[in-house]
């Protein structure tokens, strides 16, 4: 089998919607079987955490489809190369040294659901680095909330190559970011299949998925609450949540909830979180027990 060779230029990528468009255009160029892809970074001046997770994901997707993916490390600027060594990305795709401890939250890929590894990542490598001024109770609450996204990705996403994530700490802004993405069927596809409505737009499907009590699992137990809980937590605690799936885009933050249809398509689901690094922003649940739960 001869592989079709493609060289893709990776541009500068931050984590705003146009940056995700750039990533989704890269994905659309490698969404075929039997490709030999080289990623060239000559035009790239910066790669944010979402780009790192995404590039790792599409490299694995190319391999899953019988192709090969090669990153041309020689074309990297020194600052980007340092970051990719620090967050472990280069170590995953070459025999590079690293990672080391810096402001990057490591690049990770989970081919299958691994509770222990994911929880350790969230507790230790993401929140447990001393840069987030939160109590153990709040740390646990954030980890439980973010877990809902991993659970959704594995349970609903049906991603053949698993889930990918990477994060970054921004000390000047007191922000902590994390991007979690899968290359599965996407939330709109799950909702359309469940609702037997092919005409539902991606934005309407996303809005539906964030409603309380919705589920796309036909034999469910009233499941699918994760996104609703996540939304509530983000709005209450001055965080920000962005979800990209198919043409759908959801933006959730305090006082704002928007669902839009965009022009760029991505078949999987990308979730980008922003959390504050200080406990004073947070309001934890204070539910007391009562005797009539059911």
């Amino acid at each position, binding site marked *: 089998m001869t592989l079709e060779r493609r060289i893709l230029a990776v541009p500068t990528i931050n984590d705003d919607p146009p940056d995700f468009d750039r990533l989704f255009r890269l994905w659309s160029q490698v969404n075929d079987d039997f490709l030999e892809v080289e990623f060239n970074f000559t035009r790239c001046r910066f790669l944010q955490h979402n780009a790192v997770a995404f590039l790792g994901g599409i490299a694995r997707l190319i391999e899953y489809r019988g192709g090969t993916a090669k990153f041309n490390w020689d074309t990297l600027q020194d600052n980007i190369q340092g970051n990719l060594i620090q967050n472990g990305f280069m170590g995953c795709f070459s025999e590079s040294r690293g990672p080391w401890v810096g402001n990057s939250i490591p690049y990770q890929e989970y081919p299958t*659901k691994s*509770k222990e590894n994911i*929880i350790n990542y969230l507790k230790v490598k993401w929140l447990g680095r001393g840069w987030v001024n939160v109590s*153990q*109770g709040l740390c*646990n*609450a954030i*980890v*439980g*909330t973010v*877990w*809902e996204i991993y*659970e959704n990705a594995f*349970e609903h996403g049906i991603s053949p190559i698993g889930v990918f994530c990477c994060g970054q700490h921004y000390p000047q802004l007191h922000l902590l970011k994390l991007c979690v993405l899968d290359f599965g069927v996407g939330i709109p596809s799950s909702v359309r299949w469940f*609702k037997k*409505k092919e*005409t*539902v*737009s991606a934005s*309407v499907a996303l*809005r*539906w998925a964030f*409603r*309380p*009590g*919705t589920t796309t699992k036909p034999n*469910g*137990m*009233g*499941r699918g*609450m*994760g996104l*609703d*809980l996540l939304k509530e937590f983000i709005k209450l605690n001055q965080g920000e949540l962005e979800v990209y799936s198919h043409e759908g885009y959801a933006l959730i933050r305090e006082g704002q909830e928007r669902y839009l249809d965009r022009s760029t398509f991505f078949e999987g689901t990308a979730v980008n979180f922003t959390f504050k690094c200080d406990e004073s922003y947070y309001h*934890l*649940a*204070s*539910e*007391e*027990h009562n*005797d*009539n*739960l*059911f």
Partner: protein
Amino acid sequence: MKIDVHTLIGDDCITLDDGQKVHDQILPELKAGHPVELDFEGVGVFASPFFNAAFGQLLKDLPGDDLNRLITIDNLNPVGMSVLKRVIENSKKYYSDPKYRRIVNKVLDEQAANG
């Protein structure tokens, strides 16, 4: 029956599989009319899939009044309690209200019509 959830599951009660473990232990006892006490001391992280599997699906087999009478939950932290309450609220709708799905369908249709 008394279950030490931390011993059975560990620090984190978050997955469907772990919830199913709890469910499989308590369902026969509850069906037999025996009280069940679950102690969550030492468990830190909670997520809805665990509670859905452990408790949400109990309403498929037993009425809520029986579950309220037979189940005792100890040392569940406020965040966990908040998630559990939402899960049960959702599950009650799912199992008891045959119109629920039709309402959700209607809402979806309205949203689609309004763009």
